């Protein structure tokens, strides 16, 4: 019986999603604890030539399922494909990206094979669980995830059903450094698809650039206060936001001055936000502002004044001029991005 760890590698138009490489990176750590292998699952049409990239990223082998029906994501054919892998290979653990595909596919699969599924995990560990202290115990996947809007964390176990399944939030796990010298088996699994498996009709596929989101939904907020000096500087902050996949926001003063739209105001008379990163640029940190952002996961503040109250709620405070630091930060981020490719 296999006890390997499988990763469903999400792809769109033949391009593998970043989260797949992150999951493989995480799976290698879990596999080491279990003394098992990491297997990638690649589903699509004419996708086999991408399988090596999963091995380069740390997978020991890859199962590929190809069919015309799998060109665009549709719930039923993909469910059938993953279910076939489970029946064929009997994995111990399957990981999916917690994306709009992973969170559609994983529950359907879990329900079909009758096993447990934990959504949107931010931490995975292998540990020993014992029903009674004197038991020898078994090694299980400890799946930790936020609940209550991030107010509490819960660790979930799936003791009696296999595979143990989890969707994992993108951007949380670390991918490994790509190693083109790695080798591994790339195995095709033949699945018979019937026309009836295509139980919906895709009339149109429309690709679009990422839409603007509400600042309360943004994962990253680059926020400007009085210290940015001019409304034009928001364009510079927007560049940082674009690189980090976030939005720009503001303190009240700049909104009142007409520098930026009111919908972007953070604070007691604006919106309450709790992004993963809140970068406060030239914001002094009046209590009315802090009330709206103190729930953020990570706060980085840049301010000229070393006694600014914003530093009291910051994970990292940098005393300096935003107008000098931000342009340099943009250059550094661009360099960093290129080095990661």
């Amino acid at each position: 019986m296999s006890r390997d760890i499988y990763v469903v590698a999400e792809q769109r138009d033949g391009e593998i999603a970043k989260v797949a490489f992150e999951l493989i990176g995480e799976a290698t750590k879990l596999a080491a604890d279990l003394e098992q292998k990491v297997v990638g699952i690649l589903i699509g049409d004419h996708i086999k030539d991408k399988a090596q990239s999963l091995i380069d990223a740390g997978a020991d082998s890859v199962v590929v399922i190809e069919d015309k029906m799998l060109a665009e994501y549709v719930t039923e054919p993909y469910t059938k494909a993953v279910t076939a892998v489970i029946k064929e290979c009997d994995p111990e653990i399957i990981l999916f990206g917690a994306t709009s595909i992973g969170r559609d596919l994983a529950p359907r699969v879990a329900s079909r094979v009758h096993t447990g599924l934990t959504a949107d995990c931010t931490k995975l560990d292998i540990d020993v669980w014992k029903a009674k202290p004197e038991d020898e115990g078994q090694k299980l996947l400890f799946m930790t995830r936020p609940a209550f809007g991030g107010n509490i964390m819960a660790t979930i176990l799936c003791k009696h059903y296999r595979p143990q399944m989890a969707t994992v939030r993108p951007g949380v796990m670390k991918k490994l450094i790509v190693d083109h010298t790695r080798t591994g088996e790339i195995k095709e699994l033949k699945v018979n698809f019937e026309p009836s498996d295509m139980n919906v009709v895709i009339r149109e596929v429309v690709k679009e650039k990422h839409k603007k989101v509400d600042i309360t939904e943004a994962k990253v907020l680059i926020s400007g206060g009085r210290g940015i000096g001019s409304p034009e500087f928001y364009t510079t902050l927007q560049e940082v936001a674009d690189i980090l996949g976030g939005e720009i926001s503001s303190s009240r003063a700049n909104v009142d001055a007409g520098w930026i739209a009111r919908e972007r105001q953070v604070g007691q008379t604006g919106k309450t936000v709790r992004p993963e990163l809140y970068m406060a640029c030239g914001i002094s940190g009046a209590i009315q502002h802090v009330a709206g952002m103190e729930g953020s996961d990570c706060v980085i503040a840049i301010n000229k004044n070393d006694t600014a109250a914003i530093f009291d709620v910051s994970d990292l405070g940098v005393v300096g001029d935003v107008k000098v630091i931000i342009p340099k930060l943009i250059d550094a981020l661009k360099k960093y991005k290129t080095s990661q490719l």
Partner: protein
Amino acid sequence: MDFKLNKTHLLQQEMFRRFAENEVKPLAEEMDETEIYNMELLAKMHKVGLMGIPYSKEYGGVGGDYLGYSLAMEEISKHDGSSGITISVHTSLACSCVDGFGTEEQKQMWLRPMVDGSKTGCYGLTEPNAGSDAAGQQTKAVLDGDHYIINGTKIFTTNSGFADTFVMFAMTDKSAGTKGISCFVMDKSTPGLTVGPNIKRMGIRAAQNCEVSYENVRVPVSQRIGKEGAGFKIAMKALDGGRIGIAAQSVGIAQGALNEAIKYVKERKQFGKRISSFQNTQFKIAELQTQIDAARLLTWRAAVSKDDHENFAQNAAMAKLFASEMVNDVCRAAVQLMGGYGYCREYPVERALRDAKITEIYEGTSEVMKMVIAGSMKIF
């Protein structure tokens, strides 16, 4: 004796609260600054039934009661006194005259559109020279065949800036004193009816409170509500009910201001501590909340006595007298608790303090309330 709201009232209160927070609160500051009431907001209030609460479903109303109406007035007024008075004048003044004294035909014609969400009403009683002494009406209605010809000027007619339906009072027989006043209803398009600009005021600035002039306005006899000479009684009866609304508005403005102050003192630090940790702050807030609750209970008692068809005039006057004075005290204290910020227009307590003052004046001043209460107590 039951001091608890039932499930229906609780859910209504929840709905009013959400509507007020999501629809009224975001517009209140701007409406006050511009002194213009937002017509989309008015349409939304109609749509969810806020303008027809105590009226029968038979006429397209909500089928609720004055207690539910009081809850609505409180929740809306927590964020905007102007919206409160807009609802109140329409509901407990304009609609109630037609509902209480109109014929079946008049109710179908005039009440139905006001309570089913299509039209907004106003109520014209006060004149430049007839305020508390409402009997001193100078506007005249002279019978001419099957029509009346109305001439005169009304002032402080709330809602008149956008109202569709005008309920108003005029002298049909000057020699009969209060028994010579009659009540009329008409459409805003009636020739000779003109509405002046919004009067510049201290508070409730978004409400549309204008001078309305009637110049040779011809209305058919079928648009007279009640008997000729019954107008004063109709007007007073409407005001009795209206006072419950004003009391609830006062409770709302006060609670809204206190809530803001509480939020503020929990965050504001001075002398190294949150100012909510000072006993002076705690005691002040305890006193204010007690005052508000006392006013709310008086208001609910008045509403329930009206719903139970008891003689409620004294209860309504007592609720309004107490609540309107209370809200002025509470708003002044809320501004004080917030210090300099409380005085700034960035925070809504400044507006609440300005809005509060009128509650001691309109729909009967505090002095008139005392006359009503003493009169009901038969102290002559």
